[in-house]
């Protein structure tokens, strides 16, 4: 049922959307302009402007109404300083109001400017509720999938109660059955016989000691193997996926937007630590990227957390002093007695980040991909060839190495990559 329902729901939504767009295309020629304008707006304006709220520059809603002369407005977009210098009072006041922040020049044609203004007008005229709809939908979605501890607890309690009821009913049933049979005149021996039959099962066991022994041995063997395996996996946390203080998605950043790993984890290629980016690195983009389109024109609550940490006020674009560091939770933990250096593996050996960290670019939330056990390290050191070509460090080393002269593949292990002091000191 639910399946059908959801399909119809989706279908209906789609139809409505399609219908609306049809209506829009037919009703207004300007709408076409607005689409072009949207592209221009996103490419040029979003760094400093939003439709219905102030960013660096003013909110652009009703901008056409505020400017008496549309030509002057266009001129202002193309070269704001000229308009200000020309002595237009509104322009000058505007410049004053925004602390003399110079709006850069935009080399746009008149047609493009028209489209842009059309887009701003259509967006500005939209009632607020329309934007709110997807947000509400998203909230509902999260509610539907919510399974909390109370639900699980309740279920367990229910199962326990049902089990108890079952046992009690069974007992009642047995007693009643016996009563009926006794009433019908069955002898007591019959009941004894039933019990004896039950006991004879144990006697079977006694008679077939060998079979029981083999069975038990097998069972114990299996248990030991299982136990051994469990022991080896103590503190192996493959799949560990802690909840981070900020719902940061590597999928969006590394996958969708193709941000290079190094951009944020700048230490990975030069240091022991890959390093978690400091908040100022986030701000390189999130100064502007605020994902407002998803949140009803509000700044994304997750991005806001960066602002809170830095005590950054997006309205005034100023930093305060009430800063609070972000406490991330480490996903990949190596014990203190193991020394691991990222640069040795990335810069020197040329190993891709994904080899150890898995397809991070596809991970919504990062989880531990590799087991990070010593045997995992060792196996890789045994199998991986040393990237010695073009690295003068290895020249002398390789020239004198017997195995290499024989043309064998040189693995990290052959150059001492399995020795204790390479990682433990």
């Amino acid at each position, binding site marked *: 049922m639910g399946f059908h329902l959801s399909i119809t729901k989706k279908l209906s939504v789609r139809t409505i959307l399609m219908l609306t767009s049809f209506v829009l295309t037919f009703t207004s020629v300007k709408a076409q302009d607005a689409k072009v304008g949207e592209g221009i707006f996103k490419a040029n304006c979003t760094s400093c402007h939003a439709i219905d709220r102030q960013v660096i520059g003013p909110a652009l809603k009703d901008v056409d109404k505020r400017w008496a002369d549309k030509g002057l407005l266009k001129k202002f977009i193309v070269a704001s300083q000229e308009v200000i210098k020309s002595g237009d009072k509104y322009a000058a006041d505007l410049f004053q109001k925004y602390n003399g922040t110079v709006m850069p020049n935009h080399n746009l044609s008149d047609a493009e400017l028209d489209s842009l203004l059309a887009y701003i007008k259509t967006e500005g005229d939209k009632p607020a509720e329309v934007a709110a709809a997807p947000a509400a939908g998203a909230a509902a979605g999260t509610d539907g999938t919510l399974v909390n501890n109370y639900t699980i607890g309740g279920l367990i309690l229910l199962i326990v109660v049902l089990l108890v009821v079952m046992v009690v009913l069974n007992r009642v049933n047995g007693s009643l059955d016996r009563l009926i049979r006794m009433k019908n005149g069955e002898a007591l021996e019959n009941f004894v016989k039933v019990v004896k039959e039950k006991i004879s099962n144990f006697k079977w066991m006694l008679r077939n000691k060998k079979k029981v022994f083999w069975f038990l041995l097998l069972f114990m063997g299996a248990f030991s193997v299982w136990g051994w395996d469990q*022991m080896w996996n*103590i*503190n192996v*946390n493959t799949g*560990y996926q*802690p909840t981070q203080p900020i719902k940061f998605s590597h999928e969006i950043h590394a996958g969708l937007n193709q941000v290079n790993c190094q951009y944020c984890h*700048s*230490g990975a290629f*030069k*240091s*022991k*630590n890959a*390093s*978690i*980016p*400091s*908040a*100022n*690195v986030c701000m390189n983009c999130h100064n502007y990227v605020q994902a407002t389109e998803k949140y009803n024109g509000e700044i994304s609550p997750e991005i806001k957390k960066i602002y809170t*940490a*830095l005590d950054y006020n997006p309205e005034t674009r100023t930093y305060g002093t009430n*800063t609070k*560091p*972000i*406490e*991330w*939770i*480490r996903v990949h*933990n190596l014990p*203190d*007695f193991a*020394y691991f*250096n*990222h*640069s*040795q593996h990335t*810069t*020197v050996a040329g190993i891709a980040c994904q080899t150890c960290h898995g397809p991070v670019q596809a991970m919504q939330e990062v989880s*531990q991909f590799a087991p990070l056990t010593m045997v995992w390290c060792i196996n890789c050191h045994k199998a991986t060839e040393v990237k010695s070509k*073009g*690295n*003068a*460090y*290895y*020249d*002398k*080393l390789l020239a*004198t*190495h*017997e195995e290499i002269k024989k043309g064998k593949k040189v693995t990290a292990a052959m*150059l*001492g990559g399995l*020795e*204790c*002091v*390479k990682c*433990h*000191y």
Partner: protein
Amino acid sequence: MENNTKKYWKGLEELHQSPEFVKNSKNEFAEELPIEELLSESKVNNPTPRRDFLKALGFGMSAVALAACNEAPVKRAIPYLIKPEEITPGIANYYTSNYNGLGVLVKTREGRPIKIEGNPNDPIAKGGTDAVAQASVLDLYDSSRIKNPMMKGADATWENVDKFVKEALATATNVRIVSNTIMSPSTKLVIADFAVKYPSTKHITFDASSYSGMINANNNSFGKAVIPSYNFDKADVIVSFGADFLGTWISPVEYTKQYVQNRNNKSLEAKKMSRHVQFETILSLTGTNADSRYTHKPSQQGLAVLALYNAIASKTGAAAVAGVSVPFEKIINETANELLNAKGKSLVVCGSNDVSVQVAVNAINSLLGNYGTTIDLDNASYQKQGNDAEMIDFVAEMNAGKIDAVIFYNTNPAYNYAKGAEFAEALKKVKTKVSFADRADETALLCDVIAPSTHYLESWDDVSAKRGVYSVVQPTISPVYNARAAQSSLLVWADATLDYFTYIRNNWEKNVYPQASGFAGFSAFWDAALQTGVVTTTAITPQAYSFNNNLSAVAQTIIAASKNAGKIEVVVYESVGVRDGAHANNPWLLEMPDPVSKVTWDNYAAINPKFAEELGIKENTKVDVTVGTAKLSLPVLMQPGQAMGTIGVAMGYGRTNVGKAGNGVGVNAFPFVTLVNGTFQYFNTNATVTATSEAYELAQTQTHHTYEGRDIIREKSLKEYAHPEKHEGHAEGEGHSKENVDLWAAYPRNGHHHWGMAVDLNSCTGCGACVVACSAENNVPVVGRDEVRRRREMHWIRIDRYYTYESAEGKDITQEKEYNNVENYENVKVIHQPLMCQHCDHAPCETVCPVLATMHSSEGLNQMAYNRCVGTRYCANNCPYKVRRFNWFNYWNDDRFVNFLQDDAAYLALNPDVTTRSRGVMEKCSFCAQRIQAGKLSAKIEKRALKDGDVQSACQQGCPANAIVFGDVNDPESEVSKLIKSDRTYFLLEEINVQPGVGYMTKVRNTIEA
């Protein structure tokens, strides 16, 4: 191999084979297993009831079970909010700075200083450091520093302090600033500016270990009230009268660098070696390195100097002084001849603070033509500027109630003034007392205000240790506590608007920059100064000065002073680790064994064993030593090499208000310092010693790791070395056994690196800088006095000090039975031998480990995997060099031990690249594996071959004498591979064929042979 007939011994117990010694040397671990102690909750000596044991056992089991079920632990990672541009987590930054005149590089990790290295650009220390500089980083994090400024014993704000002090100063008519030597030109300017605002201000310089006598003598003799620069490298013959110039005297690191230049391998290969004669009372570090050493009582020192003057004067035609006689006239004459043969290339120095004696020394050096060559009065040293007379006047003024306000900077007279109690009384008469001390020390406690000054790693400053040499002190961390640089405070109180950094910069622009050339502008100059750490201006060519005064008056003073000497004389000396006691709360320094006595965590009354026998003093007891009214109860140390009839006591101990580690360690010997003829004298000729029955065991490491008398020392005279053909036996190296029979296949030694080390016994002075450098680099725990007594010190590198006896005629005593007939233990010779893991190719430790926790690497390292170790200690049993150290406790977290890690902030000084070891595992020198790995990695990243010098071990880098050379033996161009092949090189216990990786280079002595 060459058999050495000479007998070497570490201590009297070894020499006499005392029952205790024999017992302990047979047992690998001196004590029974400490299970009881380990489980007891409070004190180390409480036995554990059975129930507690079961409880602990049960708890342990369940804890392990629980831990095994545990989920992944939540570990937080907190990145910077705004990362400083220059910091990359995981990569160290180095900043140039200056510690007390030594140019240093400060290694910081993630913004915290963790290690001090020498700055090779520094023309004074030339990259060398001493133990004190190495340990200075720990003082930064010392939780005994006060956290806030204090007023009348309570925490205060800087505003209140400033208000209070300014008000007090406004009405003060006599202001004094008392400090130790200030080498900072900018600080001196700040004080001058302060004096402009408060015109009654006078600056008094007081050094606990004073060189006032020398400054005055130079003023008398040559009209220059300075300490000269000495050039030990230009001296072929060095004669020292009690000057411990390799250990504590003026600028020991500088002198060590110079001194070994004529004694190291390079010099020896040219068959050249300087000759060093030492006359002294106590056995000093310098004395242990001398080619010839003679002892005398302190009252004889002046006479000895005069006798030498007479001997030289008689040969040069100068006027002799009358009335001088010393018992060792013959030696003095021989020495005079040697000096005269090296005229202009000789040097006579004296540790006395007596003006008269120093004048006589000046006269000798003048006769020898040493001014302008080995002594440079024009490029003077600013390292010691204390003026005893000013200080004495100041105390008198205080007593007279003439002083209104006094400010103490870097000085602690209530503790280290000769009459501390009298000083404290006088101080009460001063209205306003301010201290810049970083802790509530003995003097600061008596003050109204403590305005804590910053540590040198926290603030800007500058240093000029010599004329024409300037360096900048840079802050490498924000102040750990709420402290403010003393200079900033003075500027605030003087109503100056400049901050101290700008002040220094302006001063440099005005005064230093004009002296430099070749810079595009001041900014470029300043940047260069910060980058190289040092700026030198044109040196003045040193002039020859001649001594033209009459010596007779001086001689009369000296002769008069030598009379009336009692039977027992006392010397107060600076110890190499603790010095004058300013850093007495530093556990690294307290645990560093004294280079000569190997005593840790105490000072003591050093006494010649024969003399002790005469006085009926027994070992492991305390004695009462009385000088005038001062009576101190000190533990006895039997010190071979000490002059008969004398007691030696180290200053700097016995602090009462220095902090957790240093409080109550030892006894304060400053009350023994006396005022004679206007200067402080660090000896007294009339002392009494009474034996007591109070038992006291010093924590002495000297026989803790013994070879049972196996032959591991090689020593030669310069003649034997230079002309081996004339002497019996053959050159070193030829004696190496050629044929090695092995049970094991040889490790392949080609292809990979093979790390090795060469230790030059002739360069090593035994100063102990390597010990502290190693502790800092490798997170070696400090275990405290009790644990050292139990032979559980954890140092990865130790310096074995061997005595050998020489008869009065200079002949070696070779037979054991002859020792019973020796007259006294004055004539001992000493050899220092640094010992760390030898990284044997056929290491005995590796074969006995049941869990393979220690094994060999393809690069020649003897590896130690702490996590595999289960603590059987077989390896330590089987190590012929006794270099393995066992963690009997979790020293890092056990509050029963004095450990710096238990300090609130001191764990910040840990090296994050090295694991801290836990209880129950063995540890030892790793050849600084972390540095090897880091060196190789940077070569790999830069795609280049590893160069010699890319990897330096911590001990090598810290050594002021370049005695330790580390590197790749497989690299034929490396220094170490060349040294290993030197004919002086031998390996310890090579006869047992463990194939050690550390080569030792024979000690050579430039002795005069009979």
